[in-house]
């Protein structure tokens, strides 16, 4: 049985629904919202796979992993993360949270021929200039008027992490202040609709 642990219900149920569709012959149980719930489920079910949150959680991830492995020695765990510093520990494969469900399913059930459910894809000029995705998130929130503490809470970072991110953003954009950084980013087309358009797109079939 596979269980998804994720605190936000919409994400938990979306992921569960996607994996249920993708996986063949593996039962996908109802999700768990917390570590405690997951452990409780592991005690009652023959757990073989788990997808867990691997960053910014209020519990000790390595301790959770150790507990789960005590119950089910062969358990395969996938840890999803957004931040640049996920909790890494033995027995957990770390995967970015924006991975496609097919990619996660591929890790759990390798080799099966898994057609992507889409008919048209297009690539973009996804080189967003000098900023990393996380730095862009920080800058986007700052440009909406959130302060450092708000940004930290929203992105699951420490305030120090936000400060460090800001320093890097300022250096990259040649800015001395938040306002200047936003002004420079807007001028460079890094924020908003003036950003570089798609450079390639396949016609509809």
């Amino acid at each position, binding site marked *: 049985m596979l269980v998804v642990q994720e605190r936000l*219900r919409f994400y938990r149920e*979306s992921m569960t629904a996607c994996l249920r569709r993708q996986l063949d012959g593996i039962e996908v149980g109802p999700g768990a919202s917390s570590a405690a719930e997951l452990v409780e489920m592991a005690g009652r079910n023959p757990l073989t796979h788990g997808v867990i949150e691997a960053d910014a959680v209020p519990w000790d991830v390595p301790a959770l992993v150790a507990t789960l492995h005590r119950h089910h020695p062969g358990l395969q765990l996938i840890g999803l993360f957004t931040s640049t510093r996920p909790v890494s520990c033995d027995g957990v494969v770390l995967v970015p949270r924006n991975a496609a469900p097919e990619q996660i399913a591929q890790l759990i059930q390798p080799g099966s021929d898994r057609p992507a459910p889409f008919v048209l894809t297009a690539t973009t000029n996804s080189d967003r200039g000098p900023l990393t995705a996380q730095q862009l998130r920080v800058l986007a929130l700052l440009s909406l008027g959130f302060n450092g503490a708000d940004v930290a809470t929203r992105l699951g970072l420490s305030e120090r992490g936000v400060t460090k991110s800001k320093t890097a953003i300022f250096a990259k954009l040649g800015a001395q202040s938040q306002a200047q950084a936003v002004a420079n980013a807007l001028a460079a087309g890094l924020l908003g609709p003036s950003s570089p358009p798609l450079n390639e797109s396949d016609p509809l079939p």
Partner: protein
Amino acid sequence: MRATPYRKPAMRAHVYERDLPKVVVVHEHRFVAPGLQEVLAGRAHVVGDTAYGAAALQLTGMLTPSVVVAGELLGDGAIDYFLPDMVRAGTRVLLLMDELPGERVIGLVGRGLSGACSTGNALVEVADAVLDVAGGGVVLPPTLVAGIVTQWRSGWRGGQERPDAKLTLREMEVLNAMADGLSTKAAARLLGVAVKTVENHKTRVFAKLGLHSQAQLVSERARGR
């Protein structure tokens, strides 16, 4: 398609059945679109999926969806930057947020947002909200509805400056300098006044316009407000 693993392609358009409301998803997480499609099956069709606001605008133009389901932070900036163009294109937008801060949601509703849904909600609840918005409805948490009604009764008009936002000529000058991203010191030099004076003006202007930071002012000005 790029070979880089785990990078979401700019956009995808999906095969869809006729006569069902069309949904475009713009969200940084790739399981959102297929997850919604699972529960919407037979009632609506997710026709496009992207992580970028610019690509979402293109998809909106190409596919004329009834509703765009959007995340707050996209691959190329926050939803705030793309909302006006989506609304102008005649698409209704439902925002998915981890939290629903009242003031922020109400501000976005004033700029044309049709609904906001918490990611703490069940998948089926979000799916129902998508259908409601696709059908022309507005979906908001009840607590926010109360706030909006209160604001409406007191004469609030979405998207306009607050009634007390009459600026003096000097304040306007300071505002313009600030909107260009100038530092207080640089603004003082430009206007030929003391730094302290600029600081005082700045505080008053921000209070009048309900701004939280100069960074916000810069981005709001760039968005034509």
